[in-house]
């Protein structure tokens, strides 16, 4: 069963992240690299990606002529995806356990950040939607 683990944050959270000391950022990146390696070594890794800053995010709608209409203004409460991991595991419990591990990635002043991680099954096909 494939699950996606999503790390999200508001713009204010990203602003705080940008203020971390260089050592804290390096420790966080080192943890994330070791975490991905663990997933690969244990055979559950499918993919991972990190996203650019919220300031670069645009919301796109199609105009009447089908041309893209872009907007870069978001409410303060907007949760931006920071990055994700897709894993292939035996049970939801295993997915939750792995999510808890990444939730403990070191944050500011080397303390575990305890970031909430959203966990969802991914679709193997549109039939999974039960429509």
């Amino acid at each position, binding site marked *: 069963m494939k699950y996606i683990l999503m790390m999200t944050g508001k713009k204010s959270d990203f602003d705080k992240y940008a203020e971390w000391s260089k050592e804290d950022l390096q420790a966080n990146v080192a943890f994330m690299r070791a975490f991905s390696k663990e997933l690969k070594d244990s055979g559950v890794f499918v993919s991972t990606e990190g996203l650019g800053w919220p300031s670069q995010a645009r919301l796109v709608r199609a105009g009447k002529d089908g041309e893209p209409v872009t907007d870069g203004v978001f409410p303060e409460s907007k949760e931006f995806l920071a990055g994700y991991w897709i894993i292939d595991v035996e049970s939801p419990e295993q997915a939750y356990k792995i*999510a808890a591990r990444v939730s403990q990635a070191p944050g500011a002043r080397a303390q575990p950040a305890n970031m*909430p991680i959203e966990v969802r099954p991914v679709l193997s096909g549109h039939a999974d939607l039960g429509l």
Partner: protein
Amino acid sequence: MKYILLMSATAAGVEGYRTRPKQDIEAHMAILHRISKDLSESGEFVATQGLVGPKEAKVVRGEKNGVPVTDGIFPEAKEFLLGYWIVDVPNPERAYAIAGRISAASSNIPIEVRQFATYESASR
């Protein structure tokens, strides 16, 4: 340049979609398949994935001892990721054009477009 196109909606929005006639949903899926096929043919396709509905979403935090603490209660305003497309395109305008096409095919739902992080941008 790699961009991710994110389609999101509230739980109420997803429920509304599920009440649509089956033919409408099938027609919508057919257009999305067509867009993926076009992106593959133009060499811009990297990946796409759909997610299972909000009812199965859980938020997990690690406790001090590493035990996962799960929670499945979300505010009504919470926007759930429904699916994404990753495209490799020469400029942001092309990413916006593809997002516009997906939006037009999907009742003008807004599509969030973001570039991927690089280690340089992460340490800026």
